[in-house]
């Protein structure tokens, strides 16, 4: 019986969805779009080829619209349209004659679906059309796009284009592309010349081409030259690989330092085991989210505003925690631990109830997206780069506050000898509150940075609390330099181990290392010296 059910089902599923053909008014385009409308992706791909072959003036525009998913058709009249925002509504504008059909709801038009293979196909077709574009930058990127699928036929095409090409940058790119294509030239001499001319390149396509020649070429001389060139390229790539690992390590380290540096104040200087530290970070991240909600179209500005705002929010919560709970528990570390753990649970549940148990979206401004392409094997992502710089700035700022301001002097005085500081007229209770607020505020700033890297959700803090304590204890309690060096060092160690040990084992190994290290040097990397260390 089941089999019958399954078969009938099968028939239901296969029943085609009826859709009327798109009307453009141009017969060739109609034929192409009829294929693109088909449910079968092979037919669709043929339609794209037909569309590219049609010499309609808007072909490029149509191809781009199709690739970016902007091209829709109205179910009413089957015309191809762009959906444009007009005073809060979406208006349908005819792609071919620019006629405005008025506003429509989301169910009255359909998108022309494409898949990855078709996106690649359209890119290649567009690149070919763009090789003769009047704008040299467009031509340059078109040559770049064609490098990926280099064919022997390209050599001649580029040679032909080079006869008329004037722009030096485009010429250079075209020459490189032509050499690359000549790697598969039937003449061994031409192949050897091509090897010599691509030997400086780090492009993966070049390496793959050379690997192919080094392993399979019928000509011995070509094989040897390809192998030598490949060896040189691989050596250079390996060097950049080490640089990349170093950057990854510094970047992971800077995140650790940012998360831990607030704790270096509250735990390191004041000696409070603050289990709610992670939640103060989380509050900073949520502040970023709320500011983005308030300023929806100004992502860049909202991030900059979020830094002071997060400092104030987390700092204020920190002061409230200190005044409300911790000040009654000084000198009772176990009870402080339990009380702050309770606070951390309360803050988490508060966020869950008030905002949402779901993660919230925080978008990245443009200057924090993408990467700085140094060459084709080394690129540094901007968000990590900025966060590294940001971490150093926060560290410098905090260092300045502690060493060069009146508050810093009082903080150090109270932490070294509370009774003596009080005798000198320092209001120790006020200093305690401000110090805790400072540490908490820095945690909030860390939250802004983390919101750019990871999920913003109620559990954000939990992920960082253990790491933070690890860094502070490893670096040496009460020493800011220790936190900086410790955090960056742990980050690099982690990333050095990750490639051969895997992410899970690398983390375990780092933890084991710290435990052994603490056995040997219980006061961490940079122990506090003098009488304060005894307290």
């Amino acid at each position, binding site marked *: 019986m089941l089999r019958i059910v399954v078969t009938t089902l099968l028939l239901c599923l296969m029943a085609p969805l009826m859709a009327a053909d798109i009307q453009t008014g141009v017969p060739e385009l109609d034929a192409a779009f009829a294929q693109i409308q088909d449910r079968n992706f092979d037919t669709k791909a043929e339609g794209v080829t037909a569309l590219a072959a049609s010499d309609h003036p808007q072909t490029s525009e149509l191809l781009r619209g199709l690739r970016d998913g902007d091209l829709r058709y109205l179910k009413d009249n089957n015309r191809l349209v762009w959906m444009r925002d007009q005073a809060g509504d979406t208006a349908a504008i005819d792609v071919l004659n620019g006629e405005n059909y008025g506003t429509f709801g989301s169910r009255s038009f359909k998108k022309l679906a494409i898949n*990855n293979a078709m996106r690649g196909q359209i890119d290649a077709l567009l690149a070919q059309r763009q090789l003769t574009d009047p704008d040299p930058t467009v031509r340059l990127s078109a040559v770049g796009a064609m490098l990926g699928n280099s064919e022997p036929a390209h050599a001649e095409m580029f040679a032909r284009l080079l006869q008329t090409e004037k722009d030096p940058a485009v010429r250079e790119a075209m020459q490189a592309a032509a050499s690359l294509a000549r790697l598969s030239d039937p003449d061994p001499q031409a192949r050897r010349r091509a090897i010599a001319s691509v030997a400086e390149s780090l492009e993966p396509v070049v390496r793959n081409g050379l690997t192919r020649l080094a392993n399979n070429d019928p000509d011995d001389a070509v094989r040897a030259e390809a192998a030598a060139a490949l060896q040189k390229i691989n050596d250079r790539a390996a060097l950049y690989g080490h640089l990349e690992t170093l950057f990854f390590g510094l970047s992971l380290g800077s995140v650790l330092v940012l998360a831990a540096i607030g704790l270096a104040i509250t735990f390191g200087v004041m000696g409070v085991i603050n289990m709610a530290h992670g939640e103060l970070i989380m509050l900073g991240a949520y502040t970023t989210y709320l500011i983005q909600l308030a300023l929806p179209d100004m992502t860049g500005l909202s991030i900059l505003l979020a830094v002071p705002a997060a400092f104030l929010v987390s700092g204020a919560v920190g002061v409230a925690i200190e005044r409300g709970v911790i000040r009654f528990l000084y000198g009772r570390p176990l009870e402080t631990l339990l009380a702050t753990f309770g606070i951390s649970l309360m803050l988490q549940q508060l966020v869950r109830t008030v905002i949402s148990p779901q993660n919230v979206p925080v978008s990245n401004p443009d200057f924090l997206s993408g990467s700085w392409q140094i060459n084709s094997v080394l690129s540094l992502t901007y968000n990590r780069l900025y966060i590294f710089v940001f971490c150093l700035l926060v560290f410098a700022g905090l260092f300045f506050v502690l060493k060069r301001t009146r508050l810093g002097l009082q903080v150090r005085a109270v932490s070294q000898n509370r009774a003596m500081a009080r005798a000198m007229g320092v209001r120790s209770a006020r200093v305690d509150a401000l110090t805790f607020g400072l540490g908490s505020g820095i945690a909030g700033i860390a939250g802004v940075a983390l919101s750019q890297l990871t999920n913003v959700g109620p559990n954000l803090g939990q992920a960082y609390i253990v790491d933070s304590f690890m860094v502070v204890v490893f670096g040496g309690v009460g020493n800011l330099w220790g936190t900086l060096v410790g955090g960056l060092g742990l980050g690099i160690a982690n990333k050095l181990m990750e490639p051969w040990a895997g992410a899970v084992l690398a983390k375990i190994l780092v933890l084991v290392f710290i435990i052994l290290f603490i056995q040997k040097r219980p006061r961490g990397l940079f122990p506090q010296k003098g009488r304060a260390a005894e307290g």
Partner: protein
Amino acid sequence: MSFANKVRRLSLAVSAATALGVASATQAADTIKVGVLHSLSGTMAISETTLKDTMLMLIEEQNKKGGLLGKQLEAVVVDPASNWPLFAEKARELIEKEKVAAVFGCWTSVSRKSVLPVFEELNSLLFYPVQYEGEESSKNVFYTGAAPNQQAIPAVDYLMEQGVKRWVLAGTDYVYPRTTNKILEAYLKGKGVAAADIMINYTPFGHSDWQSIVSDIKKFGSAGKKTAVVSTINGDANVPFYKELGNQGISAQDIPVVAFSVGEEELSGIDTKPLVGHLAAWNYFMSVEGDTNDAFIESWQKFIKNDKRVTNDPMEAHYIGFNMWVEAVKKAGTTDPNAVGDALIGVAVPNLSGGLSAMMPNHHITKPVLIGEIQDDGQFQIVSQTPGLVVGDAWSDYLEGSKDLIADWRAPLSCGNYNVKTAKCSGQNY
């Protein structure tokens, strides 16, 4: 009845039931209780809260249609708080104290493994709505989510059609990704993929620093063969993973990622523009065209009072599972677990993609497999669909020690792990 009233009534019922056993006994006479065992706090709340709401909606709708066997249904909601041992305690409370007729719940495999002995000991029914690693078939559990052959294998087949030759199997380090990747590795090798063309990588829960792994994937994928990532990365860790892919300039055209744990709900928390073209394999997408799906989306958004809320695959699994249970209870004329369990096998109900899903003798169901590409609006564009329905396979055909096993809970076999070679039922229940 408004939602607020509903909640009040529910919480009243729950508190009355827990506080006064007598009250619950009298109530049980005129209602049929249905247990909902989903975490409403802790790490899993993010996914499971939605399923709790789905169950409340389904029960409310069934009551509007006149209930079941002439009685009204009553949801008993408990919160196991993402704490695996607590799942077992709460399951026991639902069955022993609340005397529920069936339980709908669990998300992670470890929570299912934790409640399994309780359901077998007390002989009650559990409907499990999430895709999982397979290698299990219990008399008391009905698996309405996908088994690996209903999600992972068709996804890999699709990518092979697209010309993928090198494979990165990336997952979070726990039982579901490890088992799924073991099955996939065996499957790929069986298809002639060399060991050097498979890279396997595991990361801890909530991993957020993806720099080196993404860089490794990039290097692995630049060897001139088309490369794809098969991702069993769990929920949270996906956002930083995809962000890092975008930042390092890897697009779906270069190296597509097909994910088994990323659905509409997960995408609603992120900006999906950089993800366009990455893939997911499920048995249901919100973008499926059809009247049943439109009606389901409409009633869901009305119930939750938010027209931005999305629907996803595990919700569909509960929709199917609940309707199957309703049909089986009608067929059996009682809520007795033994009778309902027997009646469930062979029951077929509409799924949301326009067909009928049937409960098979191995307690898994038949489903279509859909492959979708992520769009910039957080929805999926379906790019491939299995021609028919795929029958869930409890024991993978690609693993040693499991390929000879079958599950068939019909008499006279009545066994969850029958070895066809030795003709023996190992006697173990799961």
